[in-house]
Every structure is written in structure tokens, then in C-alpha cells.
């Protein structure tokens, strides 16, 4: 084997060196101008500007809009209304009965979101755990199945929703299968209960792969000798799972649970394309309510939508704090055990 490198292979390194040499004088001049401690700011400023423009500024504007009224878009033209928008959202005879509320759709969307989040996250974590446990074993075609379960995560939410719409619509694949078995077609998307079920199902199908991957990584980090020792002690498979796997997987499970919950509360795109929030308001979730109030209705009530998004932000903040607390407690518990 010849030790001499082909001149073309050395070309990238030569180009890189030339670029660096060209950049050197202006960078040295800038460093002299700004001083060494401040030069770091120059590198983070572009990112800070983007973050400020597209994240922090909208948050501030949202706050302002939540406490102003009217249909004007320019902040300077919007009259200050104080807590009116929040008052409108929370104007209810009985909070458990959306029909008694002034903004009944807001409350229906809140309850729908809560039900969706509980069902979707609970079922998704359970299925992701089972899938991860299976994929962690030495089964035939393990790499292929890992790819199969992760594949839907790579699809755009709109594509996911359209695929399932073709399957579930009245003239869709599922009803065609039923018809071939001489069964009556079912209104999968026009019946409220079925539409809700399919929203949960499609969401699990689309996102489960991501959470399976996190749990799989957690499972692979558990030392195999622990299982060997437990097996030698005569522990049953269930005991090994409940006393070894579950406790050691808990940090990953907490991450999956909280990330899943946050994502479930923000559900919008897949469901909007799949059902449009219907039938009626059976699958209208909080983000769709915000979108409709701000942009889809004839009169764009930005203030009301901004107030609803404050409610959403508050619930997400609570979920994040719960995650932080649980993670810290879990870490503290593990550290305590390790120290003991």
C-alpha cells in the first residue's frame, strides 16, 4: 500500500487552510477592536437575534395582545382591555359543563385536550415500552423492525393525516375491507367516538417510534450482569421486569412521559388535517381553538386567542416544572442509593 496521498485528497485541507488564513487578519482586527472578553458576543449575537426575533418577541407580543381588544393587528391600534379576554374565556356557569360557558368551544377544547393527552400518552408509553422490550431482545430482523417502528416519525404530520384519511374515510380502505367481508361501512371520521379514537391511534402510530428509541437506549444502558445475577437468584421474568427494568428505566420513562404530555397538549396538525376538529367539536383541541379564533373566523379575535394561548402556556409550564421536579427527585434518589 502506497503511503503517498493523491493530490486531490489533500485539496479540501488546502482550501480550508486558505480560508482560515484569509479570515485571520479581519478576526485579529476585530479582536483588537472589541477585546478578547467581548469577542464571544460576536459569535452568539446572530443566534440571539434569531431567538429574540422569533421566540421572545412573539411571547411579549402575545402577552400584550392578551390584554388588548379589537381586531387590529398593529399593537399601537389595539385598545387596552385588561383582563376582559381572560374573563370571557372563564365566564362559566359550571366549569364541568361547557354548554354553560360563554366560550363553550374553549372549554370543550380544554376537556378534549385533557382526555386526549391522558389517553394518548398513557397508551403510547405502554406500547413504546412493550415495543422497546421486544426490540431489545435478540430477535430475527431486529434492525428492520427498529426501522419500521421509527419510520412514521420521519413523516410530515400532514402526510400522516392524509394517509390515514384515505384509510378511514367512508370510501376508504378500511370500509372497503369491511365491505369485502359483507359488513356495513362505519363512519370512522363522522362518528364522534370513533373520530376521537382514531385521532389518538394515529397520533400514537406517528410518534411512538421516537419514544421507543428513548426507552430502547435506556434498556441498553442497563448492565446485563444484573439480569444474570437475578436469574441465578431465581427471580421470575415479571420480578426481573418490575424490580430491575422498571426502576432502572424510570429516568427515561419520566422523560418520555413528560415530553409526550407536552406534545399531546400541543396536538394540532395531524388532527386538523384528519378531522378538521369534527364531527361537531369532538376532536377540537386547544391549539385549534386558538388558531380558529385568531385566524380562521371571520373576525380575527387576536386578543381572545392570545389569552387562550396564555392558558396553554401556563399548563405547559406546570408540566415542565413537574418534569424538572420528578427528574431531580429521581436523580437525588439514585445518587442517595449510590452513595449508600
Amino acid at each position, binding site marked *: 500500500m502506497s503511503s503517498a496521498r493523491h493530490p486531490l485528497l489533500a485539496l479540501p485541507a488546502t482550501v480550508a487552510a486558505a480560508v482560515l488564513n484569509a479570515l485571520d487578519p479581519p478576526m485579529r482586527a476585530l479582536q483588537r477592536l472589541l477585546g478578547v472578553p467581548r469577542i464571544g458576543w460576536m459569535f452568539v449575537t446572530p443566534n440571539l437575534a434569531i431567538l429574540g426575533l422569533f421566540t421572545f418577541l412573539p411571547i411579549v407580543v402575545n402577552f400584550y395582545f392578551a390584554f388588548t381588544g*379589537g381586531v387590529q393587528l398593529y399593537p399601537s391600534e389595539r385598545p387596552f382591555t385588561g383582563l376582559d379576554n381572560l374573563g370571557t374565556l372563564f365566564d362559566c356557569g359550571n366549569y364541568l359543563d361547557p354548554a354553560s360557558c360563554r366560550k363553550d368551544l374553549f372549554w370543550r377544547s380544554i376537556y378534549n385536550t385533557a382526555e386526549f393527552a391522558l389517553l394518548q400518552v398513557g397508551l403510547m408509553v405502554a406500547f413504546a415500552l412493550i415495543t422497546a422490550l421486544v426490540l431489545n431482545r435478540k430477535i430475527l430482523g431486529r434492525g428492520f423492525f427498529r426501522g419500521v417502528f421509527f419510520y412514521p416519525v420521519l413523516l410530515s404530520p400532514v402526510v400522516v393525516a392524509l394517509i390515514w384519511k384515505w384509510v378511514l374515510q367512508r370510501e376508504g380502505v378500511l370500509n372497503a375491507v369491511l365491505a369485502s367481508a359483507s359488513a356495513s361501512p362505519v*363512519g370512522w371520521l363522522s362518528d364522534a367516538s370513533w373520530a376521537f379514537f382514531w385521532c389518538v391511534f394515529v397520533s400514537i402510530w406517528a410518534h411512538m417510534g421516537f419514544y421507543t428509541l428513548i426507552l430502547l437506549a435506556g434498556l441498553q444502558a442497563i448492565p446485563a450482569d444484573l439480569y444474570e445475577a437475578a436469574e441465578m437468584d431465581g427471580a421470575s421474568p415479571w420480578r426481573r421486569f418490575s424490580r430491575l427494568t422498571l426502576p432502572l428505566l424510570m429516568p427515561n420513562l419520566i422523560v418520555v412521559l413528560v415530553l409526550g404530555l407536552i406534545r399531546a397538549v400541543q396536538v394540532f396538525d395531524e388532527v386538523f388535517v384528519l378531522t378538521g376538529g369534527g364531527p361537531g367539536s369532538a376532536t377540537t383541541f386547544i391549539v385549534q381553538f386558538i388558531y380558529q379564533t385568531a385566524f*380562521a373566523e371571520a373576525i380575527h379575535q387576536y386578543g381572545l386567542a392570545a389569552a387562550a394561548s396564555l392558558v396553554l402556556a401556563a399548563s405547559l409550564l406546570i408540566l415542565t416544572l413537574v418534569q424538572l421536579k420528578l427528574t431531580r427527585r429521581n436523580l437525588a434518589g439514585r445518587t442517595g442509593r449510590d452513595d449508600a
Partner: protein
Amino acid sequence: MPKEVWGGVGGSSYRDAFEEFANGRVVMYLSGSWQIRRMDSQIGKNFDWIAVPNPCGPSACTGIPGGAAFVALKRTKNPKDVGRFLDFLASEPVYAEYMARTENIPAHAGVAKKGVEYKVSPQAKAALAVFVADVPKLSPVAYQIQGYKLNRAIFNPTAARLGQAIAGEMSLDDALKRISADVDEQVKAAAK
């Protein structure tokens, strides 16, 4: 009527029911003259279809007129030329030709009276004639609602609330009350 047509979508989303009609799932489809070209080309000889006059109620036999207008920009540098061009477009023979080629219903009284020679199939021609004949019967209220700048504040809650009633979330009476409340709220919001 299959539940999907009205009840299958949420909010004020509009679900085009043409496919239902074209596939023979609904026997009657209440829509506008803009569907005629589609019916002619997509249904073809699959089955016979006809257009019928607007249904009659206690106060009128009417649909809601659609409409389009020729407009010029106020800040044009050539107002006279633009005016002459608009006159040309609105002149009887040009307008009649324009309607014939685009298969639209004429809003010009003179053209409507003389009739338009649509260059379409006999079936589509008969359907267009039904729409043309219905124009004089349109209620003035229908014109007002079409020209009302906040008309979407009426249309959207109507679709959304009736959808909820069809889905069984509320009674029809409650839906009507909610429509009134929604319209009032949106009109008030627009006035702020």
C-alpha cells in the same frame, strides 16, 4: 344525506359535497352555477342530472347570489384609459361573450333579458338557463347579506353550530341560540 357532508368536519370548515353527488351518494345537491362545468366534465354520461329552481319559503324563492365585479385601482395613472377599458368590458356584446365563455350568470339586465349563448353541452345549457331564470326572483335580503362586509361572521358560526347539532352535541334550538350569540359577539368585536 351522509353525515360526513355536514357533520363530518369541525368548526366552520367547508366540505365540498360535489364528490358525494358525482358518486351518486346524494340525490340532490344545493350549490351554485359554478358547479355546472364540473358536473358536465366529471359526471359526463354516468347519469342524467338537471338543475331545478331555488326552493320556495314563506318569504321568497331565493338562493344567495354570488358575484364578481370589474374594478380599477383609484391610484391609476391612466384613469381615462382604464375607464374606457371598463366600459368596453361592460358593453353588452363583450359582456355577453365574456359570460358565454366563462359560463357565468349575467348581472347585466339587458344581457340577461336577451339571453346568453353558452357554448356548452345541452345539459349544461339547460342548467344555466334555470339559474338565469332565477335571477329576477332573488330576494333583496339575499343581495344585502352577500354584500354585507361581516357576512362571514354569520356564515361561519352557522356552519360550526349546525355541525355541532348534527353531531349530537347540542339541540337545534341551542345551536340557533349559539349562532345568534356568536354573530353578536363577532360584530361587537369588529366594532371595537
